């Protein structure tokens, strides 16, 4: 029953996503792009969360990818499309090397280190003035991707979201689901069942980080510039996290609906209460966490109150 409901929703939004550029103007397309970006980030955050690891490092790996892409174009003369792939590889490799060091940490120790990562990257970019442009950032002077065409940029953002959705579904349907859930529930039992915990955590961290880098590449190509304060903005960590919590964690559907709802509401609030919208935003999140710890998914899935929501 619920499965059918989510299928209908999925089909509806799928069709909407593909047909949107046919009737929507530049402003709605811009809003949609933004929501899709945060949705994709929320999905990747949730993917790692399924192993029990709470990362505050989204902005770090997103920003790293963004800089990899823009510097790839400016310093190495890469074509735009290649620079986006390069961003994914760069963030993925960085996550692999960092993961070797930090994936032995658990709970808040892991979270705090990932939070620090974003800061470290930002400070490095800040200070490597000659190479990165320092605090003023860098601008792509000519040859912006698709000439800034809103329709084409929309498709690009949709590709970013599709990659996140595909990866998340892969995590849910394959044995990765068993590995990560077992690790989250009980590491000792997981080991006794032959799970190489470190290896699976490393896989999840590298895949999610690579996608975050990929999205950073798409972001920076869409706007044609990067400064440390924009691409390493805490928003890229906090908003996806809030969206996933709102929709309900440990699934693909939760972050998708959370992002859709919060994205639209915040856009509307921005118009109604300029600069005050973040307060309302914060209040929504507090209310949800206090009264619906399973997120909105709880409303859909009645029995989800007992155990944490498996995929509906």
């Amino acid at each position, binding site marked *: 029953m619920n499965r059918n409901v989510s299928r209908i929703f999925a089909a509806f939004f799928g069709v909407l996503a593909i047909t949107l550029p046919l009737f929507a103007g530049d402003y709605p397309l811009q809003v949609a792009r933004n929501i899709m970006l945060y949705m994709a980030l929320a999905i990747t955050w949730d993917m790692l969360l399924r192993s029990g690891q709470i990362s505050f490092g989204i902005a770090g790996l997103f920003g790293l990818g963004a800089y990899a892409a823009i510097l790839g174009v400016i310093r190495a003369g890469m074509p735009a499309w290649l620079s986006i792939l390069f961003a994914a590889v760069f963030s993925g490799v960085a996550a692999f090397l960092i993961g070797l060091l930090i994936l032995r940490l658990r709970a808040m120790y892991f979270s705090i280190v990932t939070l620090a990562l974003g800061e470290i990257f930002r400070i490095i970019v800040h200070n490597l003035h000659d190479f990165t442009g320092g605090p003023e950032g860098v601008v792509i002077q000519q040859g912006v991707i698709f000439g800034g065409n809103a329709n084409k940029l929309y498709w690009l953002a949709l590709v970013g979201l599709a990659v996140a959705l595909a990866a998340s579904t892969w995590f849910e349907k394959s044995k990765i689901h068993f590995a990560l859930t*077992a690790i989250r*529930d009980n590491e*000792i039992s*997981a*080991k006794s*069942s*032959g799970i*190489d*915990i470190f290896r699976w955590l490393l896989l999840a961290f590298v895949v999610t980080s690579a996608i975050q880098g990929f999205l950073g590449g798409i972001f920076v190509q869409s706007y044609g510039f990067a400064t440390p304060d924009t691409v390493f903005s805490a928003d890229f960590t906090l908003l996806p996290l809030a969206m996933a919590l709102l929709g309900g964690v440990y699934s693909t559907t939760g972050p998708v609906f959370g992002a859709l709802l919060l994205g639209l509401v915040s856009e509307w609030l921005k118009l109604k209460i300029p600069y005050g919208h973040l307060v309302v935003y914060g209040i929504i999140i507090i209310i949800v966490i206090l009264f619906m710890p399973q997120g909105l998914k709880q409303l859909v899935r009645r029995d989800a109150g007992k*155990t944490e929501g498996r995929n509906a």
Partner: protein
Amino acid sequence: MIKLRTENLTRRFLGLVAVNKVSFSMDEGEILGIIGPNGAGKTTFINLISGIIMPTEGLIEYKGNDITYVPAHERARMGIARTYQLIHPMENLTLIENVMVGSIFAKGNGLKEARRKAEALCHELGLRGLDRDTSRLTILEIKKMEIARALANEPEVLFLDEVMAGLNADETKDLIATVQRIAMERHLAVGVVEHVMGVIRELTHRVIVLEAGELIAEGKYEEVSKNPRVIEAYLGGGAA
């Protein structure tokens, strides 16, 4: 044929010697009781053998190979399985999914194959309602699920850490018969930690007794239970 043996196996936690120079061996098809008073080091001993903790000194050999420092997940793949005294179901996986995990990761089976095998195992242990959340299982069902999960590794050596605890007389009887059947059909070497001596008497072929981390006696239950050192360990030196 010797499946598993240890030599002078020792684990110290700071000043405390939890397991002290324990040498023992287990044969194929043998059900071995591991008994001793609370705090004797039985669970630590099993933790050492399954690789959950590493020894300070000594040797662990499995089928003639030195596995003293092999990580736990690799030992699971080699065929050493166990259950836990404090039950740890994976609460975000269903009953059948809990059992599938060992088949997927210890044996490398695909999801379909793992499900098929897990279903067969659950059926063999008399478990029904396989798609239930673990929060809805009775104690007996959880204990059986733990055994099924260990058996999904297709082990050659199996340790059961107080699986009978918390069960009533009928359930205990049922589980004793189940363990005996499983061990016989699979030619398993089984190590059983249990506080209920009736279970040890019925189930095991041989018993080792630990006290304060040391192996103080070994033999058939009837002999060991008359050993003055064992009686003293259980009643307490001061009291006797």
